[in-house]
């Protein structure tokens, strides 16, 4: 009996291998309207490129390459295991795997790890000042990036260990180094943003060329051998071509015709969805995103300095309509609160609806009008700032229409998507209300509740002041700090705290949350083994094209 099982198992393995062999090869063709900046993984901060970086680079740890919520788990990558925090959460000790080589043939050494952490400061990583300065020596590096060293922060041992010391405990540290920013690069990588020049990595694919006007191309890394299928599987396709310059409508047509496999742009043209969903139902995949579409209201200038005005907007917004604009009821879930579903600490909560409870059902126009009356803001001029990408202009126009119905005098300004996000952050621009979208960096509630709504995230006069609503409440901040502290020792307790914080932020109505969007991927007929990670979306080392 046993032998039969063994034979069967062996057969299965052979078949699987054959299966893998069958699907191995081909070129995955991706397309987008335009490129997205530098291909330096320690610099670029876009979902589009992260999706590619994760098949080319590895950190010490990684998010698991799998579908569903398990994709939020941290697994060992270049390190042999995920270390438990020591020293009350201030020290992490990693053991580096042996015999791993970069795509240029050099072996990965602890020195590379140290250099990579220092390089985060040298290249002015966007989060150098908000995440990585927590590494001992980080603050000094911030002031003098060019000469950054972290002798007490990142320490390479003789036995292939890396010890990282933090200034204060940080429950999200592993998340922060599992992102592409934490990629381990050759120590010899120049200490500045490499822009369009590929940097060798350790993943199954290596970037071979990049031209922001044309294409981003990855091919198999000849030095790659599978060392951790969870963190870095082998990949089926031989090459990934990501071409630029084709916009929505045309990209859809091209995918229908099999010229491309996937459109990387965030939203597809809404009017084509019906046709796509009926003609090509098997080529469509829908997955929830850990993201909010929301309208931040500036609590520091009229009319939304008035709580009643903000409440009026919240009650008046028909979130079903916004989902309709986004593409239909299956593409988004109406929401009132800050945290998206699926987050740790998420508890459904919606006060701004006809029958307040866990779910939004319908707008309460009567309440909206009465709050409006109380606010005394009728007749005030309001400008909605939205960007020109995808459905955003339509959402902006809709929001303007709602404001007009409430009694404001609203117009909508459409700005280029490339400047709108910076524009709405700068307090000098006196933006009253805008439409924007926030994706999670990693699955921790603080990524929304701390990053977007605490006093420390307000930088007057700067284009980088991500607390767009300008909401600042010391008592709220204290609660956030407490939750962060508790997350290290007692995650469950922290999650209850986050739920309360979420509720407080929602009640303060600094935002009008619209809905939690879902990702719709329209893929070519030949694309198989679609695997969607909550962190990085479609995993390119999981799909096959033949």
């Amino acid at each position, binding site marked *: 009996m046993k032998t039969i099982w063994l034979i069967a198992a062996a057969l299965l393995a052979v078949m699987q291998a054959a299966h893998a062999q069958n699907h191995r090869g081909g070129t995955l063709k991706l397309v987008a309207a335009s490129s997205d900046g530098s291909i330096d993984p320690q610099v670029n901060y876009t979902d589009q490129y992260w999706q590619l970086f994760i098949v080319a680079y590895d950190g010490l740890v990684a998010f698991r390459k799998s579908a569903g919520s398990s994709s939020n788990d941290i697994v060992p990558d270049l390190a042999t295991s995920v270390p438990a925090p020591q020293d009350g959460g201030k020290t992490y000790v990693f053991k580096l795997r042996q015999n791993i080589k970069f795509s240029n043939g050099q072996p990965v050494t602890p020195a590379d790890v140290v250099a990579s952490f220092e390089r985060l400061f040298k290249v002015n990583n966007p989060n150098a000042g908000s995440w990585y300065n927590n590494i001992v020596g980080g603050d000094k590096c911030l002031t003098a990036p060019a000469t950054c060293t972290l002798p007490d922060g990142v320490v390479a041992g003789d036995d292939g260990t890396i010890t990282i010391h933090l200034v204060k405990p940080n429950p999200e540290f592993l998340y922060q180094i599992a992102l592409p920013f934490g990629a381990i690069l050759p120590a010899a990588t120049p200490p500045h943003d490499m822009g369009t020049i590929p940097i060798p990595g350790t993943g199954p694919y290596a970037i071979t060329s990049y031209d922001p006007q044309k294409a981003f191309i990855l091919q198999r890394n000849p030095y790659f051998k599978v060392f951790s299928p969870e963190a870095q599987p082998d990949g089926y396709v031989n090459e990934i071509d990501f071409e630029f310059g084709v916009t929505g409508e045309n990209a859809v047509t091209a995918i229908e015709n099999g*010229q491309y496999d996937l459109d990387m742009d965030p939203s597809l043209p809404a009017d084509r969805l019906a046709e796509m969903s009926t003609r090509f139902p098997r080529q469509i995949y829908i997955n929830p995103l850990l993201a909010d579409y929301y309208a931040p209201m500036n609590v520091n200038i009229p009319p939304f300095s008035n709580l009643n005005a903000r409440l009026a907007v919240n009650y008046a917004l028909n979130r079903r309509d916004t989902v309709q604009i986004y593409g239909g009821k299956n593409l988004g879930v109406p929401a009132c609160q800050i945290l998206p579903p699926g987050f740790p600490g998420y508890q459904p909560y919606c006060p701004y609806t006809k029958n307040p409870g866990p779910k939004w059902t319908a707008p309460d126009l009567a309440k909206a009008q009465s709050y409006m009356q109380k606010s005394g803001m009728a007749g005030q001029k309001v400008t909605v700032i939205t960007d020109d990408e995808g459905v955003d202009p339509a959402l902006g126009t809709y929001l303007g229409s709602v404001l007009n119905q409430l009694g404001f005098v609203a117009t909508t300004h459409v700005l*280029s998507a490339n400047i709108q996000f910076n524009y709405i952050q700068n307090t000098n621009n006196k933006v009253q209300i805008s439409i924007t979208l926030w994706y999670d960096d990693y699955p921790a509630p603080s990524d929304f509740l701390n990053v977007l709504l605490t006093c420390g995230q307000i930088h007057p006069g700067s284009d*980088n002041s991500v607390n767009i609503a300008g909401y600042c409440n010391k008592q709220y901040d204290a609660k956030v700090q407490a939750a962060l502290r508790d997350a290290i020792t007692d995650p469950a307790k922290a999650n209850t705290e986050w739920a309360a914080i979420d509720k407080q932020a929602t009640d303060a109505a600094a935002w009008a949350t619209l809905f939690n969007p879902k990702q719709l991927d329209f893929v070519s007929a030949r694309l198989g083994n679609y695997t969607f990670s909550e962190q990085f979306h479609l995993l390119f080392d999981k799909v096959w094209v033949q």
Partner: protein
Amino acid sequence: MIFLVLLRRLAEMVFVLFSISVLVFLIFFATPGADPAARIAGRGASPATLAAVRHAFGLDQPLPVQYGLMMKHLFITQDLTSFVNPGQLVIPAVLQAVPVTLSLVFGAAVIWLIFAVAIGVTAAALRGSVIDRSLMFLAMAGVSMPVFWLGEVANLITQARFHNTVLFSWVPALGYVPLTQNPLLWFKSLVIPWTVLAVTYIGLYSRVLRANLVEALTEDYIRTARAKGLSERQVIFRHALRMSLITLVSMFGLDFGALVGGGALLIEVVCALPGVGMLTYQALQNLDLPFIMATVMYGAIFIVAANTVVDMLYLLIDPRARGAR
């Protein structure tokens, strides 16, 4: 003589370029939301990071110094890089876009000249007839269409509505295929953009040509030409057209220069052609100052150069102008 004229033109060009670059520079720094440091640094960057980036890119220098640096990188060391795609060199990107725009404009120019001359001459030869009137009405309609709209409608027809009919099934997906890569596909993918771009100019040129021809045909020298025993066709082509072409050539020079210089922006955007116009458009969308600067400079050079070439051409094709100099 010609040398002096050229020298003066060159001085003028430098002056114009300088003024335009200063203008662009000032407009850029007056635009809110355009802080290059914030965009280079990425979302959520802390003030310290921002300051470091600002310093690394020289954005903390006074504006005149920044201007000087940018001009140095653009013209002298030619290693100006993008603010939005760090490391991307501006000049190669522009050079790469030029063949696309040239392909587009050359092809369209061939079409529009052929059709404009055919229509203009036909209308002038049949002046007053129904054919003349309908041709001129069509020409007027051509001039009066928003070109981006025409492009959209052409896409609708050839890419979607009638894509599966015999008429348009050969039309490839939008985009550009280099001539060197696949000449046939290059041609096929450009036919629709060529036509769309040409329509306006066919309308404009055929109307101008007809008016000129009709005027020329009343001239005494045309009667002389007829009296010499020339056929009507010879009269029109050798004498009337030759004179009318003088106006047309100068128009053509300026239009061609403007289009190659980035004026075909809308059509490039609508037809997804990665030419200079598209580059300009994206640079403006991204508010990527180095790119804006480069494309504006490039465009201005072409426009000024076109003016100069037209002046020179005038000397060549109109002997009367030679005496005047």
